[in-house]
């Protein structure tokens, strides 16, 4: 029975191996454990620098924001996570509303991060800022033709507009800000106008929107600044430019990525230290250069590519509104047929 012994040996070996693997779980008390929906290649360099500075190790697990929140909820008091890190203010607000964070208010964080980028109760802290604004073809559009997000709903942009899908969180937060600033009825008209002006089915990614403009499928679009930054860093001569929207009205819609210490963290001191360190000048510089975002810490200068775009007026809407109004925003977009 050659094959029989062979198969059973394999089974035995794999059982032993699997059980030994699960036992490796236990981590040293010193380390900080992070759940992150920010992608690995963007956080790994930061955590490595933190460990170098402080000697504290960081264990991390990346995942989708919604799924990680679900896992945190179910793990409850026994969660291994000391910190939850995610993108978009709506996600941070929701994690806070589900009682997953604990309040952290230290002087370092207060000094480093301006108040409007932090939760009022100290549940979460913004760590990087991105603006969502208009991008246009310099071949076919004059900047003087551009003004606001609402302007893109006018008939003059018929078949000239490209948008990212309404399923992406950044679109939802932008729409939430339109509802907040203009009211639901007006926002509904604006969304209908956008949909009527589309030159193509909404794209899955901001980079696809920019490619479509470059290829001549459409003339204007809306993107997060760092996607433009990455593209323009590689090809500085592209016929594509950013335009700061709503400068004479409410200001450009900004969003954040951020983090908070979990409610049931076992290493509160370590997680707080990591959060403070992430708001420091050194970490904020890494943030900016890695991903072409604006530092949340106002003492830190933006990356060279980013600062070349100049300063702009920001929408001062409290960022938790993006979370509070998100369901309304999605409903409105679904009703108006914005895919």
């Amino acid at each position, binding site marked *: 029975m050659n094959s029989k012994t062979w198969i059973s040996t*394999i089974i035995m070996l794999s059982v032993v191996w*699997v059980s030994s693997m699960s036992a490796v779980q236990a981590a040293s008390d010193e380390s900080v454990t992070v759940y992150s929906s920010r992608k690995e290649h*963007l956080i790994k360099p930061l955590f490595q620098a933190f460990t170098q500075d402080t000697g504290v190790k960081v264990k991390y697990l990346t995942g989708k924001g919604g799924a990680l929140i679900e*896992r945190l909820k179910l793990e409850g008091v026994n969660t*291994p996570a000391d910190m939850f890190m995610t993108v978009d203010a709506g996600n941070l607000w929701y994690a806070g509303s589900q009682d997953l964070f604990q309040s952290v208010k230290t002087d370092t964080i207060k000094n480093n991060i301006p108040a409007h980028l932090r939760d009022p109760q100290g549940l979460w802290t913004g760590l990087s800022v991105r603006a969502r604004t208009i991008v246009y073809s310099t071949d076919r559009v004059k900047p003087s033709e551009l003004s606001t997000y609402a302007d893109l709903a006018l008939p003059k942009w018929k078949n000239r507009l490209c948008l990212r899908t309404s399923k992406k969180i950044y679109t939802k937060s932008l729409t939430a800000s339109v509802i907040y600033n203009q009211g639901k009825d007006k926002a509904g008209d604006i969304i209908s106008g956008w949909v009527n002006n589309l030159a193509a089915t909404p*794209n899955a990614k901001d980079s696809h929107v920019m490619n479509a403009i470059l290829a001549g*499928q459409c003339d204007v679009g809306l993107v997060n600044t760092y996607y433009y930054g990455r593209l323009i860093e590689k090809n500085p001569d592209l016929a594509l430019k950013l335009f700061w929207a709503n400068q004479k009205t409410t200001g450009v819609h900004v969003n954040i990525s951020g983090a908070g210490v979990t409610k049931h963290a076992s290493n509160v001191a370590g997680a707080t230290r990591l959060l403070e360190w992430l708001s420091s000048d050194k970490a904020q510089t890494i943030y900016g250069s890695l991903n072409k975002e604006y530092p949340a810490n106002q003492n830190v200068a933006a990356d060279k590519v980013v600062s070349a775009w100049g300063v702009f007026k920001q929408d001062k809407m409290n960022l938790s509104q993006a979370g509070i109004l998100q369901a309304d925003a999605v409903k409105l977009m679904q009703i108006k047929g914005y*895919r």
Partner: protein
Amino acid sequence: MMGLLALVVAMPIIVVMLSWLLPEHELWTHFSENLLSSLISSTGILLLGVGVGVTLLGTVLAYLVVMVEFPGRKWLEWALFLPFAIPAYVLAFVYLGVFDYSGYAQVWMREVLGLPGFDIRAGSWAIILTFLLVFYPYVYMMTRASFKRQKINMIEAGKLLGAGPFKVFFKISLPLARPAAAAGLLVTLMETLADFGVVSLFNYDTFTTAIYSAWGDFRSIEVAAQLASLLVLVAFFLIYFEKKARGQAKYYSANVSTIRPYHPKGSVAWLITLFVFGVFMLSFAMPMLQLVIWAWGAFADEWSANYIDLLISTSSLTIIAAMITVIIATMLALPGRCKRGSIWLKGMVRLATLGYALPGSVMAVGLLYGINQISVINIYFGGESINHIIYGSILLLLFAYVSRFMAIAYSSIDASAQQIKPVFTQTARLLGASRMRLIWQVYLPMMMPGILAGGLLVAVDVMKELPATYLLRPFGWDTLAIQTFELSAEGLFERAAVPALMMVAFGALIMMVFRYLDKKSSKAS
């Protein structure tokens, strides 16, 4: 015993179904007024297009490589399996990169041929074609095996009676291959239903769109689970119709001998080569070339020792999950299970094989909630929560794989078990063989082709799996699929091509092992 095993495998599906105990009206009103009717019709169009296309393409290709001699047949027969190794979302990604308005195929068409540009993501034809090229290997694989095992004497008799290749195909081969084609079609449709990657790249709304909207936008895991349980219902009916279509007919294989293929005239033979090679080009060679071009420039940036870890965890998960799934599926599919209580057993097995139609992340969350319920019960009886022990352990992830991919392993293994003539069992019993001996010396060797094919399919699927792995993996168990997703989600396609290519290479390796074992086992039998 077997019933309990099936029940455990079915646990996440049962949890998802139980969501109906938590009714929620407001969101359902919004969905039914604004989304559901268009989602149902767009999902229906997709299933219809993909179903018809995959059946035609897969069956015709299989018939050609088995029954017709044409230049390049030998290597194309195996090359046609290769698209299996490419994850659907990677293929969709490449197609959009090449054929979208800004892709160079369209740029070339506009600038050189002067044709007008078009929005490839409008309508449903492009996404149907994409699914077609990703999923045809399922039907191809199953019908190819079936054509190879068809009764030679029936085909020879048909030829003697003057039937041409077309008549033999439609009147003899196709009807005989119907169960195999139906099984391949079933897997394809379930996978199309559960897909989220391709549909979100094309921004095509299907039923999964509503599931993710309920969960992601409206934070209602209950409605998401309720919607997902409707998918399970659809899968249930698909399986029902497949069984119905198969009817009472039993397709016991005769002794296999080599079929003499048709030898078409030179020009016809070359046309066939052109067609088969064209499918291979579009579904594999062209996407691979694009990935290599992307990876070439980004390799220096992206490559690090980290990839050794990714490769180790991907291959360990793949091998272990495939083995466990195949062992359980074989236990469930063994012929001659006890007759008493067989309705309960049948029902449980049916339930355990429905998980394939669930989107991976819904199934994963179902699993988390199921474990949580066990904890709640344990606490009620004075015990402790087991969540923190089970969550983030590799056992849970393996459990998710087994649950999700049971359907493909089972359908392949069950099909081979169905082909064992009762006379073998009866003879062995008459000669006084024990049940254990019967299993080891009669059933398992005869089921080996199905077991191998099932193992191959599960292995490749586990390697490509993203959503459940993403949510359930232990610390430090990142896979190649996760790396590909994280990079492409940030728009870094060139760098994403590096792990994607490694996945394809690994998948091709799995298929070579399969080919080797397949040859060995067909020699043995």
